C-alpha cells in the first residue's frame, strides 16, 4: 500500500535504502491494472538501458555492440519473473546510475573526488543495496573516461569510497535493528528478509561489465561485419532472453494470480473463460472457479465439467502465507461468513514477509468491519485508503455509510451479507465445514450459495450419506429442476439398491442422466481401470469424480 502522506514518506525514507523503497512502492501501486504495471516495468527497464548506453559511451562505445546494452535490462526482466524481487531494487540501480551520470558532468577532478566520497554514504542512506556501484563506476571512469593517472588523488578517492562502503552499514547497525547482512544488501529489495537478493548483485556486476566492455572490444568494425554482428547479438538476446523468461516465470503461479485477480474484481465470467481455455488444477484456481460458478448460478450443474480436487478446491484450508488465504477469504465473504473472511484477510496481510500493508486487504477489512457494525475500526482503514490513488474515492464514499444502518442495510452487497452472516455464535472448525455451512444455510434459507457449497462439500468428499441427509434442506432454494450433479448423485445412490429402469427414483431425474448412468455403469463394472474411456465419455459427471477423482479433505 502506498500512501500519499508525510508520515508514510518519513517512515519509508528513514530506513537505509528508504528512498528506493518509497519510489518502488509508488510505482507498484500502478499494478492495480495489469497493463499499467507492465508499462511501468517496461519504462523502468528502458530507462536502465538508456543509462547503460550513456555509460558505455563514456567508456568508448562502438555502435556495433549496441544490443549488448539491453542485456542488463533483459536479465532484470528475468529476475522480476520472481515476483519476490521488489521493484525498489530496479529503482535503486536506476538511481545509482543516474548519480554516476550526473557526476560525469563535473569537469573538476577535485570536486569529483569530493562528490564520490561524500555521495557514497548519502547513496547508502537513500538507496543502500548496491550503492557501492556508484563508487566503483566513479573510480573506473577516472581512469577510462577522464584518463587520469593512478596517483595520490585517485587513491584517496578509492580509499575514501571503500571506507564509506564498508562503514556505512556498520554505522547504521547502531541505529537500525536489522542483521548486518541485510544492512549490507538492502532491506526492501527481496520480499523474504531471510533470503539475500544476490540476483541484484549479479545484475550490478553485469552492468559494470557491459559498461566497460567497449574498452576491450575492437574500436572499429568492418561495414560488412557490422550488420551481421548486430543481428547476431539481437538473435542471441531474443532467443536467450525469451528462453530464460519463459522458463523462469512460474506460469502456474501466474495462472493462480490471474484467477485471484478476477475474483477480487468480481469478474466471474472472466474466471470461467480462463477455465474454459485451460482447465485449472491447482486448488486455489479451482476454488476461484467454483466461486465464479456459484456466483453465476452454475455451480451445482457444472462443477464436475471441470477438474475438481476435493474439498480443498472448494474452500482451501488456511495456510499462513500472504497469498493463499485471499481467495478463501473471498469465498467466505460471499458466503456471508464475515468473521472468517476478515480473519483470513488479516492473516494474509500479517503474513507479508517484508511487513508491508496491503490496500486490497485494508479494503476488505473496512468492508467486513462495516458489515459487522464496527464502524470505528472500519473508519480507521477507510481514512488510510483515502490517501491512496485507486481506493481514495471508494473510501470517501464508504465513510458516508458509517453509522447509517438503513443505508448499509439497503446496500446490494453489504446489506445482503448482513442478512446472510451467522446470527448465533459458535467456534469455527475447519474440520467441520459441512456443519458450519449447514448452520449458515439454516439461519438464512435465502443463502443459496451456502446450500450449494454444503452439497458440494459432501459430493467432493464423496460422503454420499451426508449428501443424502442434507439434500432435502434445499427444497425451498428455488430450483426449477434438480441440478445435474445432484441428479447424478441421487440416481447413483438409488442405483445401489434399485435398478433405475425397473424402479423409478423418487426424484425428477432427467432421462438423459438415467441413460448416461446406464451406459456408465456396465463399463465401470466390467473394468474398473477403464478410466480413460470413462473420462472421455463421462468426465463431466459426478460418477467419474466419485470413482476416480481425488477427495482430499
Amino acid at each position, binding site marked *: 500500500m502506498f500512501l500519499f502522506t508525510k508520515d508514510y514518506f518519513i517512515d519509508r525514507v528513514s530506513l537505509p535504502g528508504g528512498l528506493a523503497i518509497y519510489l518502488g512502492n509508488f510505482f507498484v501501486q500502478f499494478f492495480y491494472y495489469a497493463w499499467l504495471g507492465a508499462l511501468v516495468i517496461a519504462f523502468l527497464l528502458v530507462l536502465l538501458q538508456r543509462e547503460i548506453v550513456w555509460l558505455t559511451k563514456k567508456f568508448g562505445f562502438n555502435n556495433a555492440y549496441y544490443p549488448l546494452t539491453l542485456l542488463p535490462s533483459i536479465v532484470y526482466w528475468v529476475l522480476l519473473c520472481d515476483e519476490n524481487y521488489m521493484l525498489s531494487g530496479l529503482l535503486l540501480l536506476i538511481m545509482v546510475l543516474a548519480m554516476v551520470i550526473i557526476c560525469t558532468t563535473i569537469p573538476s577532478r577535485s570536486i569529483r573526488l569530493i562528490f564520490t566520497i561524500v555521495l557514497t554514504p548519502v547513496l547508502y542512506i537513500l538507496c543502500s543495496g548496491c550503492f557501492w556501484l556508484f563508487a566503483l563506476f566513479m573510480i573506473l571512469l577516472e581512469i577510462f573516461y577522464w584518463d587520469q593517472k593512478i596517483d595520490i588523488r585517485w587513491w584517496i578517492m578509492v580509499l575514501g569510497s571503500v571506507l564509506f562502503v564498508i562503514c556505512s552499514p556498520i554505522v547504521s547497525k547502531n541505529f537500525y*535493528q536489522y542483521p548486518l547482512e541485510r544492512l549490507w544488501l538492502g532491506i526492501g529489495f527481496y520480499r523474504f528478509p531471510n533470503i539475500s537478493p544476490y540476483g541484484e548483485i549479479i545484475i550490478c556486476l553485469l552492468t559494470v561489465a557491459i559498461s566497460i566492455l567497449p574498452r576491450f572490444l575492437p574500436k572499429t568494425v568492418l561495414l560488412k561485419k557490422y550488420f551481421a554482428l548486430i543481428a547476431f547479438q539481437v538473435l542471441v538476446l531474443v532467443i536467450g532472453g525469451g528462453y530464460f523468461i519463459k522458463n523462469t516465470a512460474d506460469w502456474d503461479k501466474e495462472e493462480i494470480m490471474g484467477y485471484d485477480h478476477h475474483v477480487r474484481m468480481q469478474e466471474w465470467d472472466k474466471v470461467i473463460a480462463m477455465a474454459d481455455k485451460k482447465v485449472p488444477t491447482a486448488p486455489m484456481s479451482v476454488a476461484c472457479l467454483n466461486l465464479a460458478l456459484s456466483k453465476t448460478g452454475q455451480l451445482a450443474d457444472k462443477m464436475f465439467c471441470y477438474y475438481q480436487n476435493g474439498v480443498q478446491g472448494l474452500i482451501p484450508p488456511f495456510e499462513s502465507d500472504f497469498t493463499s488465504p485471499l481467495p478463501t477469504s473471498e469465498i467466505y465473504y460471499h458466503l456471508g461468513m464475515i*468473521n472468517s473472511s476478515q*480473519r483470513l484477510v488479516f492473516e494474509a496481510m*500479517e503474513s507479508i514477509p517484508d511487513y508491508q500493508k496491503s490496500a486490497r486487504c485494508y479494503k476488505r477489512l473496512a468492508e467486513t468491519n462495516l458489515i459487522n457494525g464496527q464502524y470505528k475500526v472500519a*473508519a480507521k482503514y477507510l481514512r488510510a485508503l483515502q490517501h491512496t490513488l485507486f481506493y481514495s474515492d471508494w473510501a470517501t464514499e464508504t465513510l458516508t455509510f458509517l453509522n447509517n444502518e438503513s443505508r448499509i442495510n439497503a446496500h446490494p452487497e453489504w446489506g445482503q451479507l448482513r442478512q446472510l452472516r451467522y446470527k448465533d455464535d459458535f467456534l469455527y472448525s475447519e474440520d467441520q465445514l459441512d456443519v458450519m455451512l449447514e448452520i449458515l444455510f439454516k439461519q438464512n434459507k435465502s443463502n443459496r450459495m451456502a446450500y450449494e457449497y454444503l452439497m458440494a462439500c459432501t459430493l467432493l468428499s464423496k460422503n454420499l450419506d451426508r449428501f443424502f441427509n442434507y439434500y432435502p434442506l434445499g427444497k425451498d432454494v428455488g430450483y426449477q429442476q434438480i441440478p445435474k450433479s445432484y441428479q447424478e448423485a441421487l440416481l447413483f445412490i438409488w442405483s445401489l439398491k434399485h435398478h433405475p429402469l425397473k424402479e423409478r427414483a423418487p426424484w425428477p431425474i432427467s432421462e438423459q442422466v438415467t441413460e448416461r448412468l446406464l451406459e456408465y455403469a456396465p463399463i465401470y463394472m466390467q473394468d474398473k481401470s477403464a478410466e480413460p474411456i470413462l473420462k472421455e465419455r463421462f468426465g463431466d459427471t459426478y460418477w467419474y469424480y466419485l470413482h476416480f477423482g481425488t477427495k482430499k479433505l
Partner: protein
Amino acid sequence: MKIMKQILSLLLIGIAMISCNNQVQSPSKIDKFPPIYPDYVGVTVPATIAPLNFSFPDETFDRVDVVVKGKKGNEIHVNGDAVSFSSSEWKSLLESNKGDSLLITVCLKQNGNWKQYKSFPIYISKYPIDYGLVYRLVAPGYEVYSKMGIYQRELASYKQTALYENTLVTGSCVNCHSFNKTNSDHSSLHLRGSNGATYMNINGKAEFLNTKTDKTIGSFVYPYWHPTGKYVAYSVNKTRQVFHVAKDKRIEVVDLESDIIVYQPETKQVLTPDLLKTASFETFPAFSADGRTLYFCSAEKKEMTKEYKDVKYSLCSISFNPENGTFGDHIDTLVSANKINKSISFPRPSYDGKYIMFTLSDYGNFSIWHKEADLWLLNLADGSIKDLKEVNSDDTESYHNWSSNSHWFVFSSRRDGGLYTRLYIASIDDKGKVSKPFLLPQEDPFRYYDQSVYSYNVPDFVSSPVKWDVKEMEKGITSKERTQVKIKK
C-alpha cells in the same frame, strides 16, 4: 533608508493586524465541554507528563485558541491551527501547579466566528510517576504475526525507543517482558520461533535460557518477579486459539493445560510445587509486595474447547518462604469465581501491599478479546472488591501494572474503536480514590493513533531507562547456545 523604514512599519502593522484578526473576539459561549480527542477533561496527571496535546477530529475549524491557566499561577496560550504546547512551558506550568489543577479554555473559530467552550480542569497530582513505560507493539491479529517489538516510552516526552524489534532476528516473536517492581536491572523476556529462548538480564548480566523441561508442560510463559529478585514465578501453558463466527467476538484463547513454577536464577533451578501443578488450570502468578505470598488464578479443568465458556478463574494464594524456596501446604481462595460467576485474570498486587488489581470477565483468561472485561480492585485489608468504574468503559479493559509508588497504574483499553489497544494511566490516592484515566499523550494524538497499525501490549512502568544491549541480544539469540533450566528435586 526612509523607504525602508516605511516598508518595515507597514510590515509590522500588517503582522499586528493579522495577529489581531487571529485573536478570540466576541466568542459565543457553548455550555458544554469541547469535543476534544483524547478526552482529557477532568483527568489527573503527574507533574512530569509530556504535554497533553489534543485535537478535534469531528470538527472543521479555521483556528483554535487554548488558554491553560494554573490555579497556583502561570498560564500557556496557544493560538493556531492545532493545539501543540511547548514542552518547556508545559513542564514549568505543571511543576508550579503540582497538587492543584489547571483550567483549560478552548475556543474554535468556525466560519469566521469564535465559539468558546466550557472550561475544563486537568488535575496535577502530587504523586510522582516513574521514568517511563515499556510495552510491546504488535498488530491485533490472530495466529500470524508481522512486525513487532518491545519499546520504551519516556513519560516526560513523546520519545519512544525500540528495545528489541523482530527485524533484528527474522521471524522472531517476543512477548512477556517483565521487570522487578519497575526496576529494569532485573528483566525477563521470551523469544519464540526457531531461535526461541527466555532472555534474562540481571544487573547487566544476560543469559539465554531454554525453559523447556520434560517435567513441565512447556516453556515459561507469564512472568512475575519476586521483590528480592531471587525468584521469578512463571506459568507454563498449553494454549490454543479458536475463532468466533458471529460478529461480536473474534478470538478466544484457551489453555488446554497450565501450571505454575518458580524459577531461581542463581541456581538455574525450577521449583514445581505439587499444589500448583494439579489437573486444574493454574496461571498468572504474582508475588505479594513482601514476597511471602504467591497469588495466582485457578480454574477447574474443563473439556476444551467444548466447555470454554465454563472455565472461570478464581483468585487464589499460597504462602511462600523466600529463605528456602518452599511453599505452604494449602491454597486460599481470595475471590471465588463460583460465587461471583465471573473469571479473574492478571492479578497485580500493588507494591505498597494494599491492593490487588485484576481483570474480570465473563469467562476464560485471555481478557483482551472480551469486550466485557473490566478492572477491579481487591482491598487486601478487608477483602472487599470493587469495580473500578472510574476507569472502565463499554469495551475491553485488560492488562495493567502499577507504578513503583503504587499511586499510578497503566492499563490496556480498547475503548477507542474496539480493536486497537491503547494505554491509559490513572492515579489512586492514599484513600483509594481513583482518578479519570488519560490516554498516553502523543504529539499529534489523533493522527498518531489513527495511523498506527499496532496494539499496545503488556504495559509496565520502568523507573529508569532499560539497558538491554541489542548487539548482545542478537548474538545470543542467533547463537542457539542456551542455558538449560533444571527441575529442583
